[in-house]
């Protein structure tokens, strides 16, 4: 396998508040290779978006990266001074946000925003940048781009606006893109179009993509590998087919069973009792232990480390004992 584009090692993110220091991300590690899509799923508050923001250097105080490292093409980027990071952000790493209306400036034409971004990062004159902007709009599937480039964001529909945002992220041909819930604000029929676009662009341009979403269906369609996050930790990470169809971590199992599907009509959905703990009161040991049906004494004391099991990594004591028995 080639060297990973992005490599996250034991990342920790903390938010300092008056009462306590809250650890939003606690020891997250993963790699994403060229042309690969890593899906990150989990419920609200699991730390998906914070992980994305940390990689791209957008953690605002009082939040801070308190441990671990992030490597882009083998070079550390988590400790760069803000000025250095600004040059990388947009050029090497880019981000697609959830709400396309707030990520575009309503007062400027779409073309002006694209040209500005292109010229910030690439040595081009106005003319060349505009031609490139039209090419990008064509690539993301906007009909009649020569005309649409002079439109304002409000003249585009939700799906078309999200395409513009994707074009904006592609301006400087980044190596790595974080897509944070890119389809959550869209209707299903449009969502399907945007998913296949992101997938296609990732493949064709050999970008590494981190796709953050709470929609397991979107991950199953798009991602090559998936990380299931819970309370700031990765519960299970592995090839998408394995994790979606045969999850091993009790939380991942519960999560998959809780999703109603089109295929099988079941009378009852699997129900995980309780809800995600608050950051201020994450239980000792495995964060999932109070909600876990298979928890035993050790789960309440020791935090499980991710273990390689059957082609993936699972952070659960159940599989440790299995290994030991074998």
């Amino acid at each position: 396998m080639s060297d990973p584009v992005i490599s996250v090692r034991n990342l920790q993110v903390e938010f300092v508040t008056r009462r306590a220091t809250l650890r939003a991300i606690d020891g997250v590690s993963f790699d994403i290779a060229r042309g690969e899509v890593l899906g990150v799923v989990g419920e609200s508050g699991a730390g998906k978006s914070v992980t994305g923001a940390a990689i791209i250097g957008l953690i605002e105080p009082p939040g801070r990266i308190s441990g671990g490292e992030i490597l882009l093409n083998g070079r550390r980027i988590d400790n760069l001074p803000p000025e250095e990071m600004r040059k990388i952000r947009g050029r090497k790493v880019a981000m697609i946000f959830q709400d396309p209306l707030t990520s575009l400036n309503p007062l400027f034409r779409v073309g002006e925003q694209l040209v500005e971004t292109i010229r910030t990062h690439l040595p081009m004159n106005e003319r060349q940048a505009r031609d490139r902007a039209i090419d990008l709009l064509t690539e993301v599937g906007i009909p009649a781009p020569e005309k649409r480039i002079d439109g304002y964001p409000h003249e585009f529909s939700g799906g078309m606006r999200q395409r513009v945002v994707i074009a904006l992220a592609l301006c400087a041909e980044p190596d790595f893109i974080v897509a944070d819930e890119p389809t959550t604000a869209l209707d299903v029929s449009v969502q399907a179009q945007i998913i296949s676009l992101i997938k296609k662009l990732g493949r064709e341009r050999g970008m590494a993509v981190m796709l953050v979403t709470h929609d397991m269906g979107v991950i199953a369609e798009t991602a090559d590998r998936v990380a299931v996050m819970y309370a700031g930790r990765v519960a299970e990470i592995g090839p998408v087919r394995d994790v979606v169809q045969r999850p091993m971590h009790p939380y991942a199992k519960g999560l998959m069973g809780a999703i109603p599907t089109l295929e099988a009509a079941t009378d009852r959905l699997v129900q995980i009792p309780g809800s995600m703990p608050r950051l201020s009161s994450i239980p000792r040991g495995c964060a999932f232990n109070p909600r876990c049906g298979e928890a035993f004494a050790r789960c309440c004391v020791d935090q499980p480390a991710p273990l390689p099991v059957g082609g993936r990594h699972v952070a659960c004591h159940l599989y440790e004992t299995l290994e030991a028995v074998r």
Partner: protein
Amino acid sequence: MSPRPYVEVTDLKKVFDVSKPWLNRVIERSPKQILKAVDGVSFDIRKGETFALVGESGSGKSTVAKMVVGLLGVSGGEVTIDNISMTDPAQRAQRARLRRKMQMIFQDPYASLNPRWRVDRIIAEPIRAFNVVEGEANIVARVGELLTLVGLHPDDGRKFPHEFSGGQRQRVAIARALASNADFIVCDEPTSALDVSVQAQILNLMRDLQEKFGLTYLFISHNLAVVRHMATRIGVMYLGRLVEVSEAKQMFSHPRHPYTRMLLDAVPDLAMSGRARIPVAGEIPNPINPPSGCTFHPRCPLANERCRAENPLPINGVACHAVVEGRTLLMPVPA
């Protein structure tokens, strides 16, 4: 003989006037603009079943729901619930009795509960308003009972809504809906603001309550998988019109209208069965200026001249010329 359906909706219409102000119209010589939000929708709901309305944003699902419960006046057509007309002014007195029989659960449990009221007061409000039980002690007992019913603790009644999570708040909203002994509940996207594991809890709870009390649901959602899990029958809406009404099982095994097929194909495939699917094309058009004839024709692979000119009427639950003419066999088969 089968009894009359519990809810009957006939040729329901709603138009909104979205014109510019009078002076602008005069100066700019622009005509009045009318938005047909709901255009001739008819369906019925049998007692004890879950009827689901699905469709993309702007298709008119929520407008129908609001008209059914009377939160929004109708521009045409009729709604009859339990043999009482919701639209006939002569039946005002009967309608007042009907009101307590129906309740609504809204999408956003953060916005639908008064943040300054304690939960027990929120739940007791319908009990007091409709005099369901008499006496303060009885009301307190009833509120505790309702909280237990939805999986909360009677002591939770002393808390304010902000002390609960999203799922718990939706449980409070359900308890409030049940407080007046309602038997018809309109649920407008009740789980779309919730995480999947919490959504599963709420959907299971709603089904348990339906079994226990024989509730009738009108269930609005854009999530087809959720609808599949909940509904007995399903109506698919597109641009204010009902394009297909089918039994839930049939809808998913044999979707008939081309739009229904497209919607089903667009749902991400969790099982990764690799089922063949037709890529989705286009977006929902602007309802102020809808396409002529069948409003779905610009996105439909089966559209012909007749579809562009003539609005299809529902026949056997499907409003589509192609289905009636047997042209669906020509639907392109994905490679």
